């Protein structure tokens, strides 16, 4: 810590002295798929949301314009983050986490939109503090795990993580945002397991969280019906809930090559959220199996490269930061696609990078920016 400032000065001097070619480039097999997904996302959001937007909002481009603004912001943020040396940010991790918690508290004072307090308005654009929190939390977790190393195997540290997690869960459930709690838990368990938590603790925490989820679902009747017909839905999505049925129908109509961009019928008010949670179904209908598998593949590349960057990260913080970003992306994509494909009980969750939704896009892009920053250092010989 002492010589960090020295190091900073040195590296600044270094970078000025060195030729441009010497600056290691960010991993293109991460940012290219990410940019492709984001760019495709805006087009697909326009296609999927135009009908809904002209029906219920000011015009067909209502969502698209907003998504474009967020896209520009997200691209800039991604670029900036990829240029920043992530190590310089590590000391802000506790502060960031505190900020994240503050945001979660602030949002509870907002007026509910559709029965939930999830947005904090900044001008015309709303921001979801849960997304901010997610990034801050991942950042903090990476920072903390890097410092703790093997000590993470001690129960007291585990418990400290669980306390943070439970507090966050309580705040998120108060919004309520059950899906983000689920993702948070899944990401945390995955990350803690990677970070070396003993198997029995991992199983214990996972078991406990499942019991907790069951209690939340059945004890409070929250989303009970969605779970109840889950088994039937996996066997045949047609038998499942309305959204999944419509998603499957739309995808089935798409077939091999799709009905063509813009000419899908699922978005004609059949799929309830064609541009957010169920955008994958809209895409699969309009671009067919070809498009759907391409998107699956693009995500897989990012995640694969994310884990690879972790393995090659020059320091532990980089290792855990890359692992955290990749895990989080994995969990979100897997949960969303699981819902759309009828493998997971329905829960509202956007598809990162593709779905309409500024906060998700922005903070996922920042996360990927950090991942790129790590990859830049990993590429340094």
């Amino acid at each position, binding site marked *: 810590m002492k010589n960090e400032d020295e190091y900073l000065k040195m590296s600044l001097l270094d970078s000025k002295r060195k030729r441009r070619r010497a600056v290691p480039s960010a991993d293109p097999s991460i940012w290219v798929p990410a940019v492709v997904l984001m760019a495709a996302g805006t087009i697909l959001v326009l296609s999927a949301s135009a009908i809904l937007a002209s029906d219920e909002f000011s015009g067909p481009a209502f969502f698209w314009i907003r998504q474009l603004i967020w896209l520009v912001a997200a691209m800039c943020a991604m670029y900036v983050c990829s240029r920043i040396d992530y190590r310089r940010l590590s000391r802000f991790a506790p502060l960031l986490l505190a900020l994240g918690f503050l945001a979660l508290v602030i949002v509870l004072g907002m007026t509910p939109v559709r029965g939930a307090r999830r947005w904090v308005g900044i001008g015309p654009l709303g921001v979801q503090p849960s997304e901010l929190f997610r990034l801050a939390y991942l950042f903090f977790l990476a920072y903390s795990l890097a410092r703790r*190393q*093997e000590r993470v195997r001690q129960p007291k540290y585990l418990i400290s993580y669980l306390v943070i997690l439970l507090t966050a869960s309580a705040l998120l459930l108060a919004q309520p945002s059950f899906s983000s709690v689920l993702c948070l838990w899944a990401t945390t368990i995955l990350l803690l397991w*990677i970070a*070396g938590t003993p198997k029995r603790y991992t199983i214990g925490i996972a078991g406990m969280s499942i019991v907790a989820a069951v209690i939340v679902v059945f004890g409070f009747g929250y989303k009970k019906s969605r779970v109840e017909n889950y088994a039937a839905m996996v066997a045949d999505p*047609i038998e499942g809930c309305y959204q999944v049925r419509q998603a499957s*129908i739309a995808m089935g109509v798409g077939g091999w090559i799709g009905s063509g961009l813009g000419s899908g019928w699922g978005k004609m008010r059949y799929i309830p959220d064609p541009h957010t949670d169920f955008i994958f179904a809209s895409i699969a209908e309009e671009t067919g199996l070809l498009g759907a*598998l391409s998107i699956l593949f693009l995500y897989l590349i990012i995640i694969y490269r994310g884990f690879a960057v*972790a*393995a090659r*990260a020059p320091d532990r913080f980089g290792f855990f930061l890359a692992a955290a970003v990749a895990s989080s992306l994995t969990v979100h994509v897997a949960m969303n696609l699981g819902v759309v494909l009828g493998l997971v009980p329905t829960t509202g969750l956007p598809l990162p990078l593709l779905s309409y939704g500024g906060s998700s896009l922005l903070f996922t892009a920042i996360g990927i920016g950090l991942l790129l920053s790590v990859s830049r250092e990993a590429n340094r010989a």
Partner: protein
Amino acid sequence: MARMSDKSHGLNRSGKRRNGNLPRARFENPEFGRLVLRRLKFALLAVMLFWTVLAVRTVFIQVVWADRYSRRAQGQNEQTMTIPAPRGEVLDRNGSKLAVNWHNQSFYAYPDTQNIARLTSCFANILDLPAKELRRDLYRQRGKFTWMLRQADDRTAEKIREYNVPGLKTMPEVTRAYTTGGAAQGVLGFVDTDNRGLGGIEYSCQQWLTGTDGKAVIWRDGLGRKYTIDPVRVSEPIPGCQVELTIDIGWQTLLEDELARGVSEYNAKSGMAVLLDCRTGEIIALADALTADETAAGRTKCRTVSDVFEPGSSFKLVTFAAALAEGQISPADSFDAEMGKARFSRRWIRDDKKHGYLTVADAFRVSSNIVTGRIANIIGGDVVRRWAMRFGFGARTGIMLPAEQRGSVPDRRWSEYVTAAFSIGHGVSVNTLQLANAYASLANGGLLMQPYLVSRVIDPDGKTVYERTPRVRHRVMSPQVAARLMEMARTVVTNGTASLINDPEFPIAGKTGTAEKPDLETGRMIKNKYMASFAGFWPADKPQLVGVVVLDEPEPIHYGGWTAAPILLNVFRRGSFADDPAGDPAPRLIAYAEAAEMPTDFTSATGSPAAVESFWQGRRSRTKALNRWPTEEIPDLVGLTAREAVALLQARGLQAAVNGTGRVVKQKPAPGQNYRPGQLCQLSLR
């Protein structure tokens, strides 16, 4: 892949190259670092496995199960809409449209909190309903399919559209409408709300009148809204065939008017009447006046074919025709009428008046039961029965009307009394049309025609799918016998039971009938309850029309010659004063007549009146919820002939009750007053 491994991008390779399975990042405990890297690889493996599951699932949904989902999508996206086909029109013999179609709109909505207020303000205004109750009803119906207004007329529909209520939708409908203002309803029948015929021609010509509905596909979005502006028409609606009747709406109206007037004038319970073209068998008019009970129950049948009665003296035609044709009796033969009371196998048969000896012709003229009975006993009861069947009694006439009753001509042990009773029309039942058709054979030279009601059916392409030309069933009697009977029928009017209606300037011929009604429980005759009937020809010398009028229980005068006969006279007289009495005798009549060896010199055909202005221009509102009609005024009819006045009234959907003959002197309601379709307008003529 090779390039990637060279550059040490790959996970495994990089691990191998760098000191075993260690991550590049330095961990204090290398063993722990190794564990972490291993778990990272495991995690990646799990991710790849799950991605495989996702991919397989996607393939299943998009390819393997695609057919099912596509069908499902079709089921929910496409909605087949029926484009109602107009029902075929029904025309009378002169081409006046009797039954037509209205194309109108029905309005429906799914009321919800967003549009209840708008719906309420719109329909409360238009239907003049209390807004509060309407709002309450709509609130109860919210989310459900609700008819706001069925079959609105154009004007109302236009007004409703001006309100531009969100969520208010229309459905095209075709409604059956009758232009006759209530006339000929028994013949035409009626349809239910789905345009299925339930009576009369509407029922019996169902297969022609019903069109084929068209189909259109509309695309609907997830909220059930139409997505295509115009439905894609899969098949066009094919209208039903046009049915042309032999009915003449002018004569029909006249007959109904006169019958209704006669029924009320003679205090009868009900009445039936038929007008036939005696040369062709074309049915010109079929009328029935209903009893109060039947009116209340709604019209369900055409009584002229679906009700039978004991004809009484009108049936004597059969006996006399048999007697003359069998050659055993000549008109000059005379019989003892036994002063009004005679025994037939120990039972008494009475005459209305006391007569001594009567010739056969006189017996027909004064309608002597006793002489008729004696004649029947000479030729034999079974012979009379055979002749009855020859005249078409006991068999359906086969016209296209539902529920025809054929009546009965029973075979029995022909005792003297039974034979006599049968010969005077007791113990036999006939329907009005059979009676008219039997009398027609007298006027056309002895031929029994096949009566018919539907002359032609034309499909929408103008092709004739059915055509009926006059057809002779068989010859009943020789022209000589027919002519002799005609002479006798003339004397009935000039000097017989129907002499009340004798008018040298308007000669008609006919035969009266006054039958005691049997008590259905005891089988005995009831005193003072009679079926009065009259079968008449016009003109007497060269008959064109044969008419039968039957009155049920006229009181206190019950003689056919005093009740039914004046009604028929009025019909003939008023009909003959038509503006255009000489309808075009169709060439087909001549052709058929030649084939049947009939006189072809009918210079004037049926007295066809001026075509009734058929299509009622002022479309009335058929607003069920409202029952409010567009206001129009009754025209001034004073000074017009009955026919002109009736035509004017009919054109507006009004019913006319005509009193007297000549020209209209008084009308009620007065000119300029508002009216309701179907309203009765009373006209006094002098």
